[in-house]
């Protein structure tokens, strides 16, 4: 059972409270269905969907309104409903990391999270980390060390690497391996990544 009492934002419904209303004993009786139905009805005013609903996402420091069905992943909302296509759709099931974004500063797979779950949280996509005209230290370092070929996995690595540097300004090679362990590349561009991240770390300290 989740220990986090925090309710998903945008919802008046807490799973823990729902389970509490049923009670452990009720599970053994014929009351379960009735009680559960009542709970669902009570919560219904806060349940959204199954049709499209309007949500507001905080993306790269800006509020963006978007209309999505509750089943739409954050990745699909970013790519199809908005125009943040830096996060890539590759495996679409939380393996390859090409869709990595930051949620409240923590790296997360946007393919494995619903858009409605992200409401009220701070979303940072690769586009929020730098632009071609104003590259971040890590982006510059990736280019310098040629840690990319076709480039399709690169945004995910940039986001994962940024998350590492945000929390660990002095990463070791092992730290880098671990931090990038959730991302995959097919062209084989790992070689440049350790030096890219180490040198970005140095550059960031130099600039501070």
């Amino acid at each position, binding site marked *: 059972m989740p220990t986090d009492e925090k309710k998903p934002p945008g919802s008046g419904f807490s799973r823990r409270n729902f389970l509490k209303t049923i009670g452990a004993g009720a599970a053994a009786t014929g009351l379960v269905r009735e009680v559960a139905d009542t709970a669902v009805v009570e919560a219904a005013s806060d349940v959204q969907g199954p049709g499209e609903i309007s949500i507001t996402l905080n993306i790269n420091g800006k509020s963006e309104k978007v209309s999505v069905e509750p089943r739409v992943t954050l990745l699909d909302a970013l790519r199809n409903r908005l125009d943040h296509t830096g996060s890539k759709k590759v495996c679409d099931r939380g393996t390859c990391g090409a869709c990595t974004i930051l949620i409240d500063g923590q790296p997360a797979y946007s393919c494995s999270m619903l858009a409605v779950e992200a409401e009220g949280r701070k979303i940072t996509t690769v586009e929020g980390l730098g632009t071609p005209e104003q590259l971040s230290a890590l982006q510059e370092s990736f280019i310098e060390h040629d840690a990319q070929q076709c480039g399709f996995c690169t945004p995910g690595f940039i986001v994962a690497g940024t998350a590492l540097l945000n929390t660990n300004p002095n990463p070791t090679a092992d730290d880098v391996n671990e931090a990038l362990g959730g991302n995959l590349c097919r062209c*084989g561009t790992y070689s440049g990544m350790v030096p890219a991240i180490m040198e970005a770390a140095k550059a960031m300290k130099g600039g501070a």
Partner: protein
Amino acid sequence: MAKSAWPAMGDRTVLGSRVSRLDGPIKTTGAAKYAYDQKLDGMLYGRFLIAPYAHGKIKSIDVSAAEAMKGVEVVQIIRNVGDEFLYAGDAIAALAATSEELAVDALDAIKVEYEILEHQMDDTTVDNVSGRVRTSEDGDVAAGFAEADIVHEGHYGVSPITHCCLESHGQVCEFKDGELWVWPSTQNVSGYADGLTKSSGLEASKIHVDCQVMGGGFGSKFGADQWGNVCTELAKAAGKPVKLMLERDQELMTAGARPSAHADVKVGLKKDGTITAWESNAWGSGGTGGAGRLQLPYVFGAIPNSKVGQGTIRTNRGSQRAWRAPGHPQSCLITMSALEDAAAEAGIDPLEFFKKNLDKLDVRLPNAENVYIEELDIAADLIGYKDKAHPRGDKTSGPIKRGLGMSMHTWGGAGHPSNADVVINPDGSVAVNCATQDLGTGARTALSIVVAETLGIPMDSVQANIGNNTLPPDNPSGGSTTIGGISSSSRDAATNALNAMFAKVASGLGVAADQLEARGGNVQEIGKPDNSMTWKKACALLGSNPIKGTGAKPTSDGTKLDNSQVGGCQMADVSVDIETGVVTINEMVAVQDIGTIINLKCAESQVHGALIMGVTYALYEEAIYDPITGKMLNADMEFYRLAGHADVGKLTVHMMQTEEHYSRGVIGLGEPPVISPGAAISNAVANAIGVRVPTLPLTPDRVLAALA
């Protein structure tokens, strides 16, 4: 007068240096728009319904419920009643809807009854070979084996793998004003439109193709394919733009695979290690397609007294496609493993053994024997062969066994036919135009380097335009032909543009046009910097119109700027846990033969990438099909495994780039370094644990089975 021949090695400015790729900024920031990222107003999302069985016929198909759904704009039946399909993942129907979610719902609403037919999945046994067996024989095989002191026999195999491009196959397209605009993910910008003429009903000249970046091809993205055509038909029927990119499972089942290869091999050796005979009976499966051609024995093709046969097994898997160095990695694994096993039986050090038999090479590389000796020696030094080598089977105590292995390869890599033009503007800026594509090679950067070198100007004055079929046509990127092709055509075009410019500005310097050179940002009398003008000033003399030079491969002055044929060798240092069967790469060393290098940074990346891809196919990736249901069991990226960051060990790359190498001309680099890793790693594992793990990938179960 400027000539198109490459400058002397000591006289280069930017050519062959380490240049960061020009599209780095758009790729690292997510600003790069791939086909998958295109989003047009009113665009529909296309999806395929795919066959859930490996072989069958359509008994009935009812799309009415899908068609009736609001927002589902077109439904297309691809396999109708009575139609047969040959593999799980084959397309049955397609549709386009206003959202991806709706498209998924609509697919669920299509009702299909299938008649399930028999399928054939097993490609590991020779009994399933059907059709013609290709054979050839040289010398006297019986006598060759009679002469041998040791006759080694073994079985070697390479499992099927897929391309697994991170950007799946597909395109976005839109009909507008009677013409078609297409954004595909392709290795063939210039030839793509030709594949869409039927489905669009348009001439190729009315089909506009744009592909500025693409997310991996590796040999699988040469044509418009079924998905390109279906996307076009959906867009035509709907009267709206459509995006149709393959889902990951379909991508892995249908969009390309490397054929499997198996062989029973017999090798005859004298006690001193001299190879006397070779016999191999090989087979493989390319799914519903052919299995490609193996080259056995690989590299050592001049082994006297040899007999080889190759058959094909047709299986109900998606058809094979060219996979980086088609046929070579499989041929290399079979040959180098069998030879090293034979050497181990004879108790001969493999390095000494391979060197001893270099008189049996059959490669088109000039002076090959010496090339391989030099490369083997460099690799041995880099990996610390002297200190680490031991006879087969690590005799130290404990469960972790360490071993070394090696392999050699060869590749052609001549440049492909190519066209380019170079425009010099009166303001001094320069554009190079070529309808090539960038698969991650750094094509854009290579063009800029060549033109900046030729015109003696900084790279940031040169704009490289690629990826659009309105530009001068270039051939598809396959067989490591791109850099040789585009460096020739762009050098030729820049040379011609420069000579046209010299003709216009020569009077300003008081000398004949053929007495000028462009160097260090100036146009000057040859060898006389005192009589010069700046590039900008020279360009200003052009008047108000730019000048253009066209170029091609072959070049207009007949100079050959590319070449072909390289060697290369690799060594692997591995540790194997004999209790778990897990193989760990300690180090891979690649010594790569190459001609003129355009961009050392991207060239090295190609070799690193090939090593990593090699580690992946040697240890992890395999398309696993269930023999009972005929379905691919790992059509996702969790179980279709690619090597991760921590899996690849230390990689050491040594590029052969002496004056002699430089003077050969440009030779492609994409394929050669991906050939040897499987064989080198397999040999290292055998050296570590004392037995051969016969089939790639060397997964823990296979390692433990070999040890049992």
